[in-house]
């Protein structure tokens, strides 16, 4: 695809959870909860008039769906604020400070006063029917290999509830995630190539990781705005996998191009959406289609001149009919049938002919069929009519969800500025110039810079330095190292590999604070234990964190043996293998070394063992 010729424009929106002690507007912890909930709260939401006297179109689209919600709450892990049964507490200043750090790292201009706003969202993901959000900074930029990218805004907002289950009657959410602070970073829509977007996403990710943000699955979410010259702006939510990004962009461009083609074709055919909704129960009286025969009612509409276009692929494996169906699904049906795909699904060609004849249709027309109870079927077909009429506009401004195959699915229309109004329960927060300056003077080192520095300073390999930075343990590493003479590579590998490994095995590595690690490394430094015994000793320290570490090493037989004892043990091994030495002379060294190490693992230094084995073989040969 020639992106330049198509006029491709992309912008990025990144949401990152901050690793604060408390939520943004209440004292609850910022952790997800996996145990059974204590209470269920049932709620409804309704759209309200916006400040411009208009109902926001995204809020309206949600309002006509069923708005029955259930919220899972906890007696101690969540509180009345998340339930929308207590006003929010004051703004979490720790979250604001992290946001200011991020803003400064992105060369942004911090606002003088932070005002908390309500962004209306009535899909139930926020108990209040709005998300609290505020603008922290504007006018930033990032220098990328593809040129300068403008960072338009940095917002600080609440994360939404976790969706647990959606049924025909309600959607169930868990309150644990609601209120976790999120930094929202928005670039301008000036990027022209998917690779550039990936690069910018990576760079912003690196910047975020140098600050106190959450790590792991679901803690960072990317949305992408895409438009082409003849198309419209579409926001794609939840692009988790950046490797899929090129494909998503290409698929979206394909979709927009096809929708434009469909629009032109519809116009040239003089196509028309017929208002009437037909009862089709009679035609399908004796149908073999299980879906149709089990439905309370079967209804249909006629799309004049749409024939063949409903079945047209807009993205690989997704037809224009799928686009229409996703609108209908918002009203509670599981899908639609259209004549471009029939006969199929148990609907016979005979029935299709009968249908076309009774509705007086020709080749160029299409019928959409919905089977459900009467009320839902009619309301779904109203949505179908709406979407079909919008086909004459080509591409629509929509919020879409990224799918795992690189396609996207309709969620709701793009929100308008109408959905934002002031949160009156929270006073505005003055951001002191002094605070901004002190943050600016103490900005964290960015990950790439940090990596280069520790490679040079501590002679670490690229891979080891990478692990130290990626795992966020550089501070620990640099805190430990000045107290020790032990080589930095040993210390770094214990931190980067051994500790995570014993953690994976289920040991409580939180007990290994820096002081304990220094004590353990000192034992190695002083020849009390061997490097090989570090992991075993750490495990024992995790188990009894309050005991003296040297004593733990002694009690568990992890200390090094004296040289005499080592000689005694190896000499025993050599004697037992006298025959092998006789046959193989010095080449018995290998197997004997192996046997000795097995016996002495962690209890004697390897080089000592090597020397003693050699000496003892010589001795044996000389006898």
């Amino acid at each position, binding site marked *: 695809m020639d992106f330049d010729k198509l006029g491709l424009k992309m912008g990025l929106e990144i949401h990152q959870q901050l690793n604060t002690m408390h939520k943004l507007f209440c004292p609850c912890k910022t952790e997800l909860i996996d145990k059974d909930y204590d209470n269920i709260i049932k709620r409804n939401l309704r759209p*309200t008039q916006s400040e411009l006297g208009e109902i926001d179109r995204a809020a309206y689209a949600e309002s006509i769906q069923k708005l029955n919600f259930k919220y899972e709450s906890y007696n101690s892990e969540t509180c009345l604020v998340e339930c929308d049964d207590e006003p929010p507490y004051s703004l979490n200043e720790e979250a604001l400070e992290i946001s200011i750090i991020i803003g400064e790292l992105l060369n942004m201009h911090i606002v003088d006063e932070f005002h908390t706003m309500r962004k209306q969202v009535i899909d139930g993901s926020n*108990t209040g029917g709005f998300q609290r959000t505020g*603008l922290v900074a504007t006018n930033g930029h990032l220098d990328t290999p593809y040129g300068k990218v403008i960072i338009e805004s940095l917002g600080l907002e609440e994360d939404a509830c976790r969706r647990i289950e959606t049924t025909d009657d309600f959607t169930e959410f868990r309150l644990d995630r609601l209120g976790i602070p999120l930094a929202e970073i928005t670039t301008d829509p000036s990027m022209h190539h998917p690779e550039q977007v990936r690069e910018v996403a990576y760079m912003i990710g690196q910047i975020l990781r140098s600050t106190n943000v959450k790590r792991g699955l679901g803690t960072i979410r990317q949305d992408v705005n895409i438009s082409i010259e003849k198309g419209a702006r579409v926001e794609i939510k939840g692009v988790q996998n950046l490797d899929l990004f090129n494909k998503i962009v290409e698929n979206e461009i394909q979709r927009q191009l096809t929708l434009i083609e469909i629009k032109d074709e519809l116009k040239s055919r003089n196509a028309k959406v017929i208002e009437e909704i037909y009862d089709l129960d009679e035609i399908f009286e004796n149908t073999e289609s299980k879906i149709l025969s089990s439905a309370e009612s079967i209804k249909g509409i006629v799309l004049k001149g749409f024939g063949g276009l409903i079945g047209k692929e807009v993205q690989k494996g997704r037809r224009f009919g799928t686009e229409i169906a996703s609108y209908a699904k918002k009203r509670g049906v599981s899908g639609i049938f259209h004549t471009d795909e029939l006969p199929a699904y148990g609907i016979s060609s005979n029935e299709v002919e009968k249908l076309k004849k009774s509705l007086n249709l020709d080749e160029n027309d299409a019928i959409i069929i919905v089977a459900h109870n009467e009320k839902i079927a009619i309301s779904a077909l109203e949505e179908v009519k709406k979407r079909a009429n919008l086909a004459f506009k080509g591409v629509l401004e929509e919020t879409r969800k990224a799918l795992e195959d690189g396609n996207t699915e309709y969620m709701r229309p793009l929100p308008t500025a109408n959905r934002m*109004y002031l949160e009156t329960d929270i006073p505005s927060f003055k951001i002191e110039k002094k605070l901004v300056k002190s943050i600016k003077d103490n900005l964290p080192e960015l990950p790439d810079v940090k990596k280069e520095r520790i490679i040079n300073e501590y002679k670490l390999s690229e891979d080891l330095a990478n692990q130290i930075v990626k795992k966020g343990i550089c501070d620990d590493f640099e805190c430990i190292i000045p107290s020790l003479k032990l080589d930095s590579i040993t210390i770094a590998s214990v931190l980067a590999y051994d500790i995570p490994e014993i953690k994976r095995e289920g040991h409580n590595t939180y007990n290994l604070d820096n002081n304990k690690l220094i004590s353990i490394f000192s034992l190695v430094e002083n020849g009390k234990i061997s490097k090989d015994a570090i992991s075993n000793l750490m495990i024992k320290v995790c188990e009894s964190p309050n005991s003296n570490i040297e004593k733990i090493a002694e009690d568990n037989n992890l200390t090094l043996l004296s040289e005499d004892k080592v000689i005694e043990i190896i000499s025993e091994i050599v004697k037992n293998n006298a025959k092998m030495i006789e046959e193989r002379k010095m080449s018995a060294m290998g197997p004997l070394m192996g046997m000795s190490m097995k016996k002495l693992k962690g209890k004697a230094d390897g080089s000592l063992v090597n020397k003693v084995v050699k000496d003892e073989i010589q001795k044996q040969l000389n006898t």
Partner: protein
Amino acid sequence: MDKRKYLIGDLMSYKKISKYFLDNSNVSVGDTITITKTDIEYKGILLDRNDNSEDGYIVLKLDSGYNIGINIENSEVNLVEKGNKPKIGYDNKQIAKSDKKENISIISTGGTVSSIIDYKTGAVHPAFTAEDLLKANPELLDLANYEVKALYNILSENMKPEYWVEASKSIADDISSGSDGVVVAHGTDTLHYTSAALSFMLETPVPIVITGAQRSSDRPSTDASLNLINSVKVAKSNIGEVVVCMHETLDDSSCLVHQGTKVRKMHTSRRDTFRSINTEPIATVKNDNIIINSDYSYFKRGKRDLRLNNDIEYKVGYIKSFPGITNELIDYHIDKGYKGILIEGTGLGHIPDYIVDSIKRAKEENIAIVMSSQCLYGRVNMNVYSTGRKLVDADIISGEDMTPETAYVKLCWVLGQSNQINEVKELMNKNIAGEISSKSSVKNFLN
């Protein structure tokens, strides 16, 4: 035509420095402006600023919808486009009436249930009228015909006894003009005082339902909708009493109907804040059903003729006893010419014994003193301990199992009926509007 009274003043305005700056720049609230500082320029609509905020800042709504505060130091403002201060509220559409439906009066008095956000300024004002309530909740129109009236427009913490008098008069007018039921939208803070007052002032043939909201109507999660819809259902029902109708639980699924004299706000913020005290609710409203508590006896619709008796005494004090209370508090009320004092005593109805002297003085001055309990649950009994008996000797009147708030309102009303202490005592101890029950049930605690 605007009947709204006691309108609170505009709480939003620019103070000295900012005002001077804006006036000099020739821009006003609602205009689209640019503000330029050495390192940044912002463009947006100039908004008003909360009175409590620091001077020297202005508030701008940016294109993105975000508001920010900008320090005006070293900055320059330029007008981009003149704007209007937008009007708040819904269009005044005519609402059609049907003969088949009941006629329900909705009276708004202000408070969260009828507050609306002033979007330009961001303040929540109780400036939403009864009419607006209907328009914000169009499903109400399926239930009844409505006469709507904005009686006043105050937050309920600013409620005064004279407003009860006016409200009772207005409700009586509606009922005599053929209303089949009345819904009063009220702030929750003092809602239970008003419900008690209306209970004493009005003998009613039709339901009078008082309701409110804990979450303002400008938010999608407001509890106002369910409370209002269910209140209208109760106003159409057979319950010929003054009642309070509010959320039963944290769920948006049912409401409780409480006796107007036996209800109290028990939580600062929860939706289910109103609870019946020392009794059970009269009914539960769930979906389209009103499930009446069969143990409850109440006046049915049409059982009583309308009777308005809204004479009250305003000079009634309310004193809570506490460790360290001094005689001065009582003496002050006596000296200032109060006609009655409601005491919220400890436990069974006690105050420290050294206060008894002041009580005796009050008795000499012909001031009615009523004892209630800060326990809220249970009944006053001053015969158990010696202090109590001293109080009985001083002729203090028992508030029985009334909540202190109901006892206070009743004392205002009773003193409006008579200034003879013996008559006052008799009326205070007689059940007028369900406020006193003859015995205490095991069931009625912390429900």
